[in-house]
């Protein structure tokens, strides 16, 4: 196969991934806390606080308790945040302040191995956070099994997509503060309007169209169907969206990073 050199990745990306695992293991006690506590806080605030006002939510013609409605969305938000923040702030610090990538480039690693390792690590963090949260949500009886087991592979696919686009931003921002921009314009709107805390149908038609352009909306749709055990062939379209998203942004991250770092 004739892959251009700037897109060639070797198995060595796993060494970069392992370096990040090793650093994560040093602080795992602290790193475990947010995904453990966050769902508890959300369920407390939104679920029990807000649901007394909201009551049940209509989802696919069914009345669903509000806590059950938001539970899969909380998982999706964790996937997005963990992957996106890892390859934006995390990778930027390693690249710009710690010069870790420069040091790696003086070894048999090529830039593509490094960036692929970082993105796969971002996806891995999404999986870890999802797994921890899922345990908590399962204890509350909010995930249905065995379908719920699909959430973990889904978190890797979603994490890979969000980590890829995060890395594209890392390749182009001049300064770390500028990450505020994609967060304000891209991540937060998805967090609020991606079918997370209220059904999309309550939005005006044009806003629904916008929402369907964004990855989190598709991810939430998938996770909610999986969490409620309502698998159907139409879900494959949403999965396809996430795969295509990665197919576009992963190579773009490699190309943009090469432009940025290789002088």
């Amino acid at each position, binding site marked *: 196969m004739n892959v251009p050199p700037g897109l060639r990745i070797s198995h*060595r990306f796993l060494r970069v991934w392992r370096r990040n695992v090793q650093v994560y293991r040093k602080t795992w006690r602290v790193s475990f806390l947010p995904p453990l506590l966050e769902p508890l806080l959300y369920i407390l605030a939104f679920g029990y606080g807000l649901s007394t006002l909201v009551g049940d939510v209509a989802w696919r013609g069914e009345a669903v308790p509000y806590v059950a409605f938001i539970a899969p969305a909380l998982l999706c938000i964790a996937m997005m945040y963990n992957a996106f923040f890892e390859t934006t702030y995390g990778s930027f610090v390693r690249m710009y302040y710690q010069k870790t990538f420069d040091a*790696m*480039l003086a*070894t*048999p690693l090529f830039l593509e191995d490094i960036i692929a390792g970082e993105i796969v690590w971002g996806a891995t963090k999404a999986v870890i956070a999802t797994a921890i949260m899922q345990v908590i949500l399962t204890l509350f009886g909010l995930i249905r099994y065995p379908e719920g087991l699909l959430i973990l592979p889904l978190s890797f696919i979603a994490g890979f997509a969000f980590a890829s686009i995060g890395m594209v931003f890392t390749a182009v921002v001049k300064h770390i503060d500028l990450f505020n921009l994609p967060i304000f314009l891209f991540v937060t709107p998805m967090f609020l309007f991606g079918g997370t805390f209220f059904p999309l149908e309550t939005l005006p038609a044009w806003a629904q169209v916008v929402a369907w352009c964004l990855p989190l909306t598709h991810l939430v749709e998938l996770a909610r169907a999986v969490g409620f055990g309502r698998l159907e062939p139409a879900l494959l379209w949403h999965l396809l969206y996430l795969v295509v998203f990665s197919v576009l942004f992963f190579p773009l991250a490699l190309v943009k990073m090469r432009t940025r770092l*290789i002088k």
Partner: protein
Amino acid sequence: MTPMEYVVEAENLQKTFGAFTAVDGISFRARRGECFGILGPNGAGKTSTIRMIYGFSPLSGGSLHVLGEDVTRRRTLRKVKYRIGVCQQDNNLDPELSVLQNLEVFASYFDLAAPQAAERALALLQFIALENRKDTPIPELSGGLMRRLVLARALINEPDLLILDEPTTGLDPQSRHQLWERLEGLRARGISILLTTHYMEEAARLCDRLIIMDHGRILVEGRPQDLIRDHAGKDIIEVGDPGEELRAFVRDRGLRHDDLGHRILIYCDERDQLYREVSEHYCRDGCILRTATLEDVFLKLTGRELRE
């Protein structure tokens, strides 16, 4: 001639950044087993050159072979990257890992299995006298210790060629001498070294041969003592605050000299007689006789104006 007689062969090597030419078609060869120096003021093109050699920067033109392999091809470049050790200018140690972990993780990039990595890492920590600090976090190390650890890290793959980009910049004299001793130890073991520096003392002490670069070109190439002899002579008489009489004397005798205004350097080979003459008749504000150094050559060739 076998290809491996030279560890680096650069032929008309060029590096441009947009309209700026950092390396302007230089050619040189570094032999196996020697310490080869690249000297030059800031912005001379040293780091650009060395970055092409260790595969960080692509070439803009010319050809470059390292350890006999063409580094412009990705496959052969990867082979080269396995066999070189690089000490970059920044102390880019991994601050999130301990001293020992820094070496072990780096070893993994070279495909070393964990037991072998641990063994080499400990041996190297002994070599740089850091074995008692193996669990120390990087931010707690002094600049000199960090530098030594960067050197150890560059040796983790037992490289055939060690590349050092300004290894002692920013170090105090003690740390610098510590590092020099270790580099001399490595040289004695026959490892090939490529070194950039703007410390002439460092170059004179470590390098078998060197080039002096400026504005992306090579000004001279040779052994340090030959360069000194050819460009600065044996000795130098330095006269502070020289008067017109001295200037006339120097002109009449046709002596090789540099007039810096407040100071005159006279290059000479017959030291004692000339020095006696100068110091007796023309010395108003101190004059000294000293051996010519590489620094004299360097300043003579690259000028005395400030850079950057």
